[in-house]
């Protein structure tokens, strides 16, 4: 077969150059080049070969080096491309040491019928569903449609199976409402028919892959009905030496011959428990491989198969078993013996085909919540009733995925499943079409379920070479050791032995492990069951799952209308929630400390401005808006007159502060609530949770309008003067525009809502305009000679006034009273969230942690936030520093802290414990600047 047709592809494996053909898997190409040892086993370090021809491969794991390092892929699924470099894997894969340059993306799709698997059953199901007018998605993990037909080369409707499948798929793909996805593995089936699939789009193109095409794409599919036409995996019995390179599933060998034109060996012995290995043997023989013998554990195979073998001169040894595969590093002979004892003989062979029957691929069905039942005929678990109580799946299962043994049966079954799906999805079911014709389908003789070929002595130690899980190097001896240790559950045996935990997640070994365990415990495997199936059905790359949610798309970057100005001014940015906020605006040669002191001075002595657009803003509208706010805030909101503003605090039911902000009343039934920047979404969620789950009768709507407004805070003794200049039509007099009121006005020619509120204690305004005027307003205010300041200065100014930052000076364990804000808790309201907790024993404790100020004795010493306070000589923490700054106004450093019994301790001397160092501080009232509030009115 050196002269296989097709385009030559050059690749490198384990340091040697080879040629394969376009369309080969790496496994096929290696076999074509006579490479039989591919990897090394994980525990024992034994050479391992190619065992299968698909994703169930337990042995031939490779590491990709070029085009880009990728750990652990089955050689049976890697399509070769020019320049591919791979190595056999010794149990562990290796990650690249550089970032992956590829792109990954995600799409959503909706359909009436999703068909998983484009084998004969899946193709028919999709065709029927499409014929009835349904929107159909047909997905298959292989590069081409056809499923088992690719390997068996059986004819359908007089065409070679592969061609028949390709034509059907092409017809389907030509329909407007049908999408055929190849190289697409459906790997998860979640609730309500939400399925996830990964499409491998460029891997097979190697270096020729267009850089702009996503390498892998996740499909998130919501389907009304799903047809699982996922096929079956061949399994193998446990016998000595069944891990040697050269031992291969019978169906896989058939695939290599038929699909790839590759001979996996020269002389083969076939071990089988059922008829399906016969056509495999005959196909191999026809391809020029000598079949030394078919070893059939049954007394008789199907008559027609026996006849054909006789015709070909193939020896069929019924009632025989393979007691051992032998060879140094790879198979060289097979020990064959009558099962009931008798003379064993050593048959030279470089290939041993094994078939222990077929196990339906029920992974997705089981993931979806379907229950399984044991089918005695095929000796495996099959999908149970989809309409059983507590299950009720919108799923059909078709073909060999539910144990249908024949090709004609699968074609019919697929069509029926497609029709059932159509009907269930509410479509009229068209007249039945005649099923495709299958000519050669000899009657089958019953299979026998043989799991284990006993060792000579049947002692635990004699089972050290009877492999159960090839990839984990788990043998029958290991399983017996587990049951010997007292274990009775397959889940325990799995964990004790590690069987089924490897890359293949036990696809070829799971049932075998259960069967051997059952055997050891004297139970029926039907009763013992198998371990749970979990997503993903096949390994999926991290990068595909991450998709495009990386770097700056990892979480939305939110910026205000003035952002570019801040950046142009060289302001370093602080992440606050999703927002980027200017931290401070350094002038040439200024460090952060100097800049912040200067900004603070401007705000306290002159006039300064801040971009306050990021504060959360929630529109609360409806006849019960006031009632809702009364229940959410600790203080009264319903008494707020239209035109006025009130500061409010929200607590959790445990009485702990959750958020704060101002509420302005725009109309009788319309409020605007502001929240902290980081908490805006949480507050809206909170409102909705209460509205939707507890108070659905309230007629209120809450809408986030944060992004609709841009806000400039104008702060400082000269702010009134600046505002008057910018808003000539606004009467800014203290009496006509008092504190905690708002006015509509034109500011710098822009329609604005001006609020007289202050988070600094100074005379201050917040000017709100539509977002798109934000920059214009900002520039106009700045042009009036106003100093911009960032979040750091804002923090210092408010701290000097003892205003807490929720989330910095609180941590979910602090009440309004602890913050010295008992005044914000209504005594009049009948109820509000948190009220009951304020009378609890722990909430009224006098030694609760309370917000206080701290003045370090060394007036230049900055107290690090997070440092704990102790009594001089003590070690018990009394509390910690929540905020610590240098104050321009106080001419010294200061801090805020939460301290046990803090208000009682005002005047006391404590130590801030910096490891070994103790920094002496004095406790003060938390309002350190302008405690009389004299500066508010300018």
């Amino acid at each position, binding site marked *: 077969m050196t002269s296989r047709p097709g385009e030559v592809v050059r690749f490198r494996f384990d340091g040697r150059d080879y040629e394969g053909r376009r369309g080969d898997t790496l496994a096929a190409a290696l076999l074509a080049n006579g490479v039989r040892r591919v990897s090394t086993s*994980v525990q024992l370090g034994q050479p391992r070969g190619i065992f299968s021809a698909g994703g169930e491969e337990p042995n031939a794991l490779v590491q990709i080096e070029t085009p880009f390092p990728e*750990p*652990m892929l089955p050689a049976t699924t890697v399509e070769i491309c020019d320049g591919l470099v791979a190595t056999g894997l010794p*149990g*562990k*894969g*290796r*990650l690249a040491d*550089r970032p*992956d340059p*590829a792109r990954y993306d*995600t799409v959503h799709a909706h359909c009436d019928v999703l068909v998983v698997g484009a084998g004969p059953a899946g193709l028919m199901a999709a065709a029927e569903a499409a014929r009835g007018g349904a929107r159909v998605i047909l997905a298959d993990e292989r590069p081409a449609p056809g499923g088992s037909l690719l390997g068996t080369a059986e004819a359908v409707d007089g065409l070679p199976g592969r061609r028949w499948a390709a034509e059907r798929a092409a017809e389907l793909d030509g329909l407007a409402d049908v999408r055929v996805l190849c190289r697409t593995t459906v790997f998860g089936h*979640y609730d309500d028919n*939400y399925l996830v699939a990964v499409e491998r789009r460029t891997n097979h193109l190697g270096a020729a892959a267009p850089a702009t095409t996503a390498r892998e794409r*996740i499909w998130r599919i919501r389907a009304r009905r799903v047809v699982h036409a996922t096929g079956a995996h061949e399994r193998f019995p446990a016998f000595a030496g069944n891990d040697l390179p050269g031992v291969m599933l019978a169906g896989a060998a058939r695939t290599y011959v038929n699909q790839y034109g590759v001979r996996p060996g020269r002389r083969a012995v076939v071990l089988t428990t059922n008829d399906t290995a016969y056509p495999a043997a005959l196909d191999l023989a026809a391809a020029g491989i000598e079949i030394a013998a078919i070893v059939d554990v049954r007394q008789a195979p199907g008559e027609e198969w026996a006849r054909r073998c006789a015709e070909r001169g193939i020896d069929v040894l019924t009632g025989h078993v393979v007691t051992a595969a032998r060879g140094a590093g790879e198979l060289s002979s097979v020990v064959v013996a009558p099962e009931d004892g008798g003379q064993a003989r050593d048959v030279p062979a470089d290939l041993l085909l094994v078939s222990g029957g077929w196990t339906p691929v029920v992974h997705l069905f089981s993931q979806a919540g379907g229950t399984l039942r044991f089918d005695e005929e095929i000796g495996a678990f099959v999908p149970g009733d989809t309409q059983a109580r507590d299950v009720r799946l919108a799923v059909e299962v078709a073909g060999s995925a539910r144990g249908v043994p024949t090709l004609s049966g699968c074609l019919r079954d697929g069509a029926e499943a497609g029709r059932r799906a159509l009907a269930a999805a509410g479509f009229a079911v068209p007249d039945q079409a005649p099923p495709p014709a299958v000519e050669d389908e000899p009657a089958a003789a019953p299979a026998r379920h043989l799991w284990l070929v006993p060792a000579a002595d049947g002692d635990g130690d004699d089972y050290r070479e009877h492999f159960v899980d090839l990839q984990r190097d788990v043998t029958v001896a290991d399983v017996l050791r587990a049951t010997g*240790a*007292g274990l*009775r*559950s397959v*889940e325990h045996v799995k*964990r*004790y032995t*590690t069987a089924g935990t*490897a*890359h293949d*997640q036990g696809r070829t070994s799971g049932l075998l492990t259960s069967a051997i365990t059952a055997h050891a415990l004297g139970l029926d495997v039907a009763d013992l069951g198998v371990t749970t199936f*979990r*997503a*993903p059905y096949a*390994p*999926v*790359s*991290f*990068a595909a*799952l991450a*998709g495009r*949610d*990386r*770097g*700056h798309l*990892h979480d939305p970057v939110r910026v205000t209308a003035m952002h570019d100005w801040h950046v142009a001014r060289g302001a370093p940015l*602080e*992440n*606050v929630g999703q927002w980027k906020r200017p931290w401070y605006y350094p002038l040439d040669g200024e460090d952060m400390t100097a800049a912040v002191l200067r900004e603070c001075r401007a705000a306290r002595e002159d006039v300064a401005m801040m971009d306050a657009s990021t504060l959360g803003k929630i529109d609360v509208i409806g006849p019960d808006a006031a009632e809702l706010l009364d229940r959410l805030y600790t203080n009264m909101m319903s008494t707020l007159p239209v035109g006025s503003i009130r500061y409010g605090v929200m607590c959790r039911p445990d*009485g*702990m502060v959750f958020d704060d902000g101002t509420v302005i009343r725009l109309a009788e039934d319309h409020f605007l609530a502001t929240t902290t920047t980081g908490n805006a979404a949480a507050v809206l969620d909170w409102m909705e949770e209460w509205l939707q789950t507890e108070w659905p009768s309230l007629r209120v709507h809450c809408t986030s309008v944060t992004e609709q407004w841009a806000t400039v805070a104008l702060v400082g003794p000269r702010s009134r003067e600046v505002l008057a200049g910018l808003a000539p039509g606004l009467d800014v007099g203290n009496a006509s525009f008092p504190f905690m009121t708002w006015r509509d006005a034109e500011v710098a020619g822009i329609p604005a809502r001006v609020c007289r509120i202050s988070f600094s204690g100074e005379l201050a305004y917040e000017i709100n305009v539509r977002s798109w005027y934000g920059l214009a307003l900002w520039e106009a205010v700045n042009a009036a000679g106003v100093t911009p300041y960032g979040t750091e200065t804002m923090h210092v100014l408010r701290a000097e006034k003892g205003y807490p930052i929720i*989330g*910095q000076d609180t*941590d979910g*364990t602090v009440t309004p009273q602890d913050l010295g804000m008992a005044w914000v808790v209504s005594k009049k309201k009948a109820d509000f969230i948190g009220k009951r907790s304020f009378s609890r*024993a722990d909430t009224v404790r006098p030694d609760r942690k309370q917000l206080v100020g701290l003045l370090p004795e060394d007036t230049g010493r900055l107290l690090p*936030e*997070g*440092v*704990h306070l102790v009594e001089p000589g003590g070690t*018990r*923490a009394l509390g*910690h520093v929540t905020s610590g700054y240098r104050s321009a106004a106080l001419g010294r450093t200061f801090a805020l802290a939460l301290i046990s019994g803090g208000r009682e301790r005002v005047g006391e001397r404590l130590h801030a*414990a910096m*490891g070994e160092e103790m920094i002496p501080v004095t406790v003060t009232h938390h309002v350190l600047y302008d405690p009389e509030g004299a500066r508010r009115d300018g």
Partner: protein
Amino acid sequence: MTENLPDHPDWLWAAAEPKRSYDVVIVGGGGHGLATAYYLAKNHGITNVAVLERGWLAGGNMARNTTIIRSNYLWDESAGIYEHALKLWEGLEDDLGYPLLFSQRGVLNLAHSLQDVRDSVRRVHANRLNGVDAEWLEPEQVKELCPIVDVSPDVRYPVLGATYQPRAGIAKHDYVAWGFARAAAAYGVDLIENCEVTGLDVRDGRVTGVRTTRGPIAAGKVALCAAGHSSVVAAMAGVALPLQSHPLQALVSELLEPVHPTVVMSNAVHVYVSQAHKGELVMGAGIDAANSYRQRGAFHIIERQMAAALELFPVFARAHVLRTWGGVVDVTPDASPIVGLTPVDDLYVNCGWGTGGFKATPGVGWCYAHTVAHGEPHPLSAPFSLDRFTTGALVDEHGAAAVAH
């Protein structure tokens, strides 16, 4: 070829048949139930004990967690019990005579915002005052300890530093469960699998026994250890627990050559990762928001977690997810556990460990056994009483404990 895991012993435990009565019946054969049984026998000489497990032993969260062990919790109460546990971990392999693969490889909790930094530094100071090893690391030091973490400013939420607890680490969960099971069974404790408790018999305010799918069993005392199903079981005695049960998912990759020497947790870029002994990456993140008793979650949680993983560890891009799974975790309003007495005499409760109770296994077993044996709380578990939800004396680790695992 990789290093083999240590072998399990040749003998673990024998499946026991339920007797008609026991001095103590423990409901739930997870890590906590088994550790409680062990310490009841070892520390208090109480061996007429049954552990009732509705499925296979330690097949609940004990079999599903990501095995992170640390004691760097914020509050004194938490530090007390978790540090007690960590000290026990440090001698547990010898005590149980079982290789637990306890590996003190250190845990990093990353900070990504200025507030994260404040909270982290605060926790470091609190830990030190409580005798818990803790350090604050700058980004370069994070990089030194775990070179694959991307500490560049290019990520969405750059790493601004981390707390580090060198004594923290991981262990192998099954080995731990089986170590306790084997040792408890050796003391004569009955480990009864496939035995679901369906009712609690309460007479005159006192619990007298349990109903099970394998018949009624009388009990002098009943100790609940049902994790995600605690509220269901407690309700059988009319005890309402302030718990919400949620799915919590985790996943593993294929076996990889060593790349990750420690444990990294991040709350803001929500994911946590370690590389287990065999070589697989083990990862988790936050709970599914919906309540559920099913041991499965929604897929977008996994996708989000992988995005977070690649933000912090770009080299993981082409690793593969082999398997995902979910457990059911019981979350309290203050994210701290409930351990102690109930309004029903002789009925004890241990629950609410939520997403982080594996690390506590020996510690809680120790304290809970004491509580059950003496009928009064162990000093270390006393702050975690059920009545704190009435008094308000919460131990709120929500904002405080970095990631809650």
